[in-house]
């Protein structure tokens, strides 16, 4: 489903984010990319979402080589993904409902179906009663759950989460980890970039360790 073949990523200024990374993530897997800050975890997720292009090597998603992907096809690739951002990227001038509904608006769903799916997503993350609230009125943990609801509302095949428990206490981090586990059980491929031990211990995932841009434990 996701494949890295000898991938290098260098940023302007000579910063090396990834070096010769090769791996394979199969459909329905639950994978954690672990490593210290600056190890290249976020870069890997950005490469999968085609936010960045590799400097060398090849990244493919669903057998689609992202190098050859036309700009016109990019939005449709991203609609197969659910993205959970470290900084949440919530729209604070919109309600909780409207934030979650955005991917469905992009997909062109009708009002009724949108309402049904948003309610289901909010219910799943425990925010159903807050749908009319402003995201600014939510706690950090609730904002993260809102971000997760937005990531899953359009039923993506792959869920990518970048430090999803970065600012949360262990209890809230555990709750978030449980959410990811439940999505994975429902068949979603989940890739989490984190250095949070709580998440790693709770999920017992397949673990990929990155150190200074190199993969320590390569995929089979």
């Amino acid at each position: 489903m996701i494949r890295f073949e000898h991938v290098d990523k260098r940023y302007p200024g000579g910063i090396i984010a990834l070096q010769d990374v090769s791996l394979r993530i199969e459909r329905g897997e639950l994978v954690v990319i672990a490593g210290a800050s600056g190890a290249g975890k976020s870069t890997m997720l950005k490469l999968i979402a085609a936010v960045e292009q590799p400097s060398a090597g090849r990244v493919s998603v669903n057998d689609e080589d992202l190098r050859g992907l036309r700009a016109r096809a990019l939005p449709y690739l991203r609609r197969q993904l659910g993205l959970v951002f470290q900084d949440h990227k919530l729209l604070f001038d919109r309600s909780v409902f409207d934030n979650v509904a955005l991917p469905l608006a992009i997909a062109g769903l009708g009002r009724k179906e949108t309402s049904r799916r948003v309610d289901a997503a909010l219910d799943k993350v425990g925010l159903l009663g807050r749908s009319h609230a402003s995201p600014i009125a939510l706690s950090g943990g609730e904002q993260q759950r809102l971000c997760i609801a937005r990531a899953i509302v359009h039923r993506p095949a792959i869920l990518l989460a970048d430090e999803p428990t970065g600012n949360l206490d262990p209890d809230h981090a555990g709750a978030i980890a449980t959410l990811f586990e439940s999505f994975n059980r429902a068949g979603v491929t989940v890739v989490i970039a984190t250095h949070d031990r709580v998440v790693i211990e709770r999920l017992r995932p397949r673990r990929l360790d990155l150190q200074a841009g190199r993969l320590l434990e390569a995929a089979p």
Partner: protein
Amino acid sequence: MTGWLRAHARALGAALGRIFRHPAASLLEAIVLGMALALPLGLYVAIDGVHAFASRHASAPELSVYLALGADQRAIDAVRARLEGLDGVDRVDFISRQDAAKALRKSAGLAEALDALPDNPLPDAFAIHGGGWGASRLERLRSEIALWPQVALVQVDAGWARTLEAAAKLGRAVAALLGVMFGLAALAIVFNTVRLQLLDRRDEIELSRLIGATPGFICRPFVYLGALQGLLGGAVALLLVLAASAWLNAALVDFSIAYGAHLSFRAVPWGVAGAILAGAGLLGATAARLAAGRQLWA
């Protein structure tokens, strides 16, 4: 098709929502746009009035040929035949000295003065209607006919109207040029407004791109916003011109009547009003599309 319509309805709703959320700012933008569009439109309306006035008078006889007071029927017939034989003459009307006196009595209130005279002082005359002679041709004709026997005077009548019509034509060209210039100014105004809106919404745009929005999805609400702003600006321009012409019309009519003419601003025709609104909307949409495209490429 339903999805396409839904996407457009959503974009239109978002654009209307932005206008209603910021009514004061939207109104000010519409007034600025309206003023930019009102200037060439106002000039067009003024020139249209002058053009209509000139056209009415340009259809008057081009030349009046006055015969000598003692000209007899033979002389009259001879002059008529020569006039009808001239190249480009559409029609030759004979006005007898009796008819001329009758008309003068009616139109100028000179009955008493005419009665006081021992004899009718007016000559027989011909009014010549031509087919669009230029000023130089008219002058040549005037000189040529003036030399004919029994011709006392030849007068070029519609020359001033033709000149006025030519000036109106020039004025229309100037109005069109101003229209282009102020249209570009309106384009810049909408471009900048939408650019600011895009900057204000850059987080939303970035997020939308990350989660699979197409450029069309991102641009559409801004294009509708630009089109609506253009429409509002066009409507303001029409209202301004309508109000200004209504305000000035009475004074203009009084002024022109004092000079024996009737000059007035005409209402903007429905077709022109529709074209102004459609053009302004299209202008706004184009400016917004350019601004959104620039932002997306950046």
